[in-house]
């Protein structure tokens, strides 16, 4: 997994690549939490363009970060969701809590 974080207008944008499983979950969680600690971002945009695999361990990190921004009344938006990831999100009911946008620009406009 590769992960990059960028701040734009009080939004934390996270670009992830690779497989989100129990092995990458720790770094995934840590990177987002460190970014949120270091900055005043209220919302998170997760760009899943390069993510071709996710399982329940990856989902757990997303849900945990959702809970964190929710406490600050922030929102979570996901972009570029690949079909196999979409399937898992659907089964887990994740679309009830995260908003989907086509790309980062749309996500920033929405927030």
């Amino acid at each position, binding site marked *: 997994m590769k992960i990059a974080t960028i701040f734009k207008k009080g939004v934390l944008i996270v670009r992830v690549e690779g497989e989100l*499983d129990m*092995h990458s979950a720790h770094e995934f969680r840590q990177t987002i939490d460190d970014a949120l600690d270091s900055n005043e971002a209220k919302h998170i945009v997760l760009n899943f363009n390069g993510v071709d*695999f996710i399982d*329940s*361990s990856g*989902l757990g990190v997303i849900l945990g970060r959702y809970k964190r921004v929710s406490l600050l009344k922030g929102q979570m938006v996901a972009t570029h969701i690949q079909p196999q990831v979409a399937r*898992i999100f659907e089964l887990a009911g994740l679309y009830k809590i995260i908003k989907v946008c086509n790309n980062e620009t749309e996500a920033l406009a929405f927030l």
Partner: protein
Amino acid sequence: MAIKNHFKMTFDSLSENVGIARLTAAAFAAQLDFTINEIEEIKVAVSEAISNSVIHGYGNDSGDVELVMKLYDDRVEYIVIDKGRGIEDIEQARQPSYSSDPERMGLGFVFMETFMDELVIETELQKGTIVRMIKKVQLNKAH
């Protein structure tokens, strides 16, 4: 039914190995006429079973996880074996959203059940857990 191929793996209970085993499981399934989507389902199910052995079965202890793969004409079977803690209440463990770990989703068994055609769990406390999963090739599928 005759087994056409048999492939067994034994590896350290390390998170690094979950991805390697998942990839091997997908390559093994590719011998049959599964769709890409079905192969993805197999990857998730195998990933969940192996992650459970590493996380819940052994926790922070070291131990061996075993993945046995068997190929038949119309189905593939995956058996994930650990000699870890075992599951106290299988009924409860299989419930959606139940997890003994507050940080986790409790969706592992749900995904295994959703994505595979058969799921059988055998477990004994302090002895370990065996998760047996079967995925069948769908007949009459459009090509």
